[in-house]
């Protein structure tokens, strides 16, 4: 299942400038990772990724590394998947917030993703990278703000590609659902996964903060039970 686009149009703003800026920054930093950092990635990740042990012992970049980690990606598929999801779920969330508060919420969701990651995997020396924690926050926020939203999604049924408009709740539940079992396994068996499931869940639950960031008119619509 691959979300492709949110087919609904914006209500408040013409263009999702901050979403696009975030995508450009992520791509630019990935370019630096690939073409500038190259083989020397370990010190780079130690400095600019979120490593639980370093965060808990207040070593390394702390808050700054927590932010820079949100812009680092492991490979082109990691980057591509995250940026696609950022575009799909971020556009209308930004529309409801305005660009600067959207940025604040994005960073907040990414930070809470790392907080849960650090709390659950406090012994881990594996650096956490990627925008996915923040993007799970956007998915949660999207679900809160647009519960009736539909997402154009690419699905394969017996290798046949289809792209129906699926209710956002099913898309989001699918992505959150596939985190839960590996997250529990990480907790119980102390298994390390290359995917940071707890960070995803942390980001998702931070979506409740979105109500502090949406613009007054959008909030009035939210409390009036009409489409934000």
């Amino acid at each position: 299942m691959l979300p492709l686009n949110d087919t609904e149009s914006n209500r408040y703003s013409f263009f999702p400038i901050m979403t696009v800026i975030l995508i450009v920054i992520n791509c630019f930093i990935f370019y630096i990772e690939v073409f500038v950092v190259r083989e020397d990635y370990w010190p780079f990740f130690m400095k600019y990724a979120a490593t639980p042990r370093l965060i808990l012992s207040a070593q390394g970049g702390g808050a700054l590394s927590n932010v820079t980690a949100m812009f680092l990606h492991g490979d082109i598929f990691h980057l591509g998947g995250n940026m696609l999801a950022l575009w799909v779920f971020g556009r209308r969330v930004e529309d409801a917030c305005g660009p600067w508060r959207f940025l604040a919420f994005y960073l907040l969701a990414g930070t809470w993703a790392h907080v849960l990651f650090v709390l659950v995997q406090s012994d881990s020396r594996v650096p956490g990278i990627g925008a996915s924690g923040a993007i799970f926050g956007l998915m949660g926020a999207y679900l809160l703000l647009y519960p009736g939203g539909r997402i154009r999604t690419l699905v394969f049924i017996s290798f046949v590609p289809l792209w129906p408009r699926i209710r956002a709740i099913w898309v989001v539940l699918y992505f959150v659902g596939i985190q839960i079992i590996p997250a529990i396994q990480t907790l119980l068996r102390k298994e390390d996964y290359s995917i940071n499931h707890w960070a995803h869940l942390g980001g998702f639950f931070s979506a409740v903060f979105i109500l502090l960031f949406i613009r007054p008119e959008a909030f009035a619509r939210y409390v009036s039970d009409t489409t934000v």
Partner: protein
Amino acid sequence: MSSAEVLQRAIQTARSGRREAARDLLLDLVEVDPRNEMAWMWLSGLVDSLEDKIIACENVLTINPSNEKVRQYLTQLQKRQEASILKKNNEDAVSLLDQAKVHAERNEIDAAINLAGQALEKRENYADAWLLIGQISPNIDQQIAALEKACQLDPANSEAVAALKQARYLKVNPISAASRLEQMGKFDEALKVYQELASKTKNSRDFDHIYKQILRIEGLQDEKIQYVAPASAITRLTFGWPALYLSLILIQVGLNPFRHFVFYLWLGLPLVVLGSFLLSLAEVRSNHMVWQKIFDEHGDGSNFARFITAATGWFLVLVPHVLLALDSLNRLQNFKIPPMPV
């Protein structure tokens, strides 16, 4: 028994302390002899209520207009009666105004104005009632008239003076007045003001702006959007940036503020709260007291005031974040990179 004997008996009974029996005797007496001056005089001292005393005295004076002692006593009684009525009216007016304020807080403006009007019927020179009407009335002319009365009654009341200045400002700035009505959740009245403005304006740019507002408010009405007070929107938005800053500090101090305490980072939190408040204030249209107290403006904040407020807000929000980033960079400079696990 003759009238004189009944009177004598009543007087003796009164002197012996049996007031009620004496009063009954005198009441019987004045029924058969209504022009008995002495009987009415004694009655005026024996009846309980102020009104009955006054009636008795008036009857004495009707029989004998030259009875100066009773005339003086009647004057005293009438003064006491006026004071008593005034006191009761004052108490009623205060009670009515309290009820009016409760309705005003619930945004039930018509009921509040009605009760404040009733309070004024009880006590015409009640400055607080005039002030309340001046503050809540949706009619700008009624607002100004009420506030002028409030200021006239109590020129030292700075709240009334400021409200009057504001109302006069809104009278000559109808767009702000319409915006104020919208803030109060009175979409119909706001729409009326905009429609009136649209019919009067000759400038096409102004007309476009007003027309956009009309469309927007009509849209809100069609969608049945629930009214959210500007103060609540400002409060809600104020907590957004501090939530981010607080989360970043938590990460910076290793999720343990007691183990890795950095004083100046925590000092930044109130600055971020203040900055975030100013940013919210600059965005949400409201007649916040900041516009009056700091900029001496009586509308919803001019573009200049909003710009200054937003700039100050951004400064206060960003400075603690920059300090946090500098603290992180400082830590990064002294950071020894651990070896890569094999």
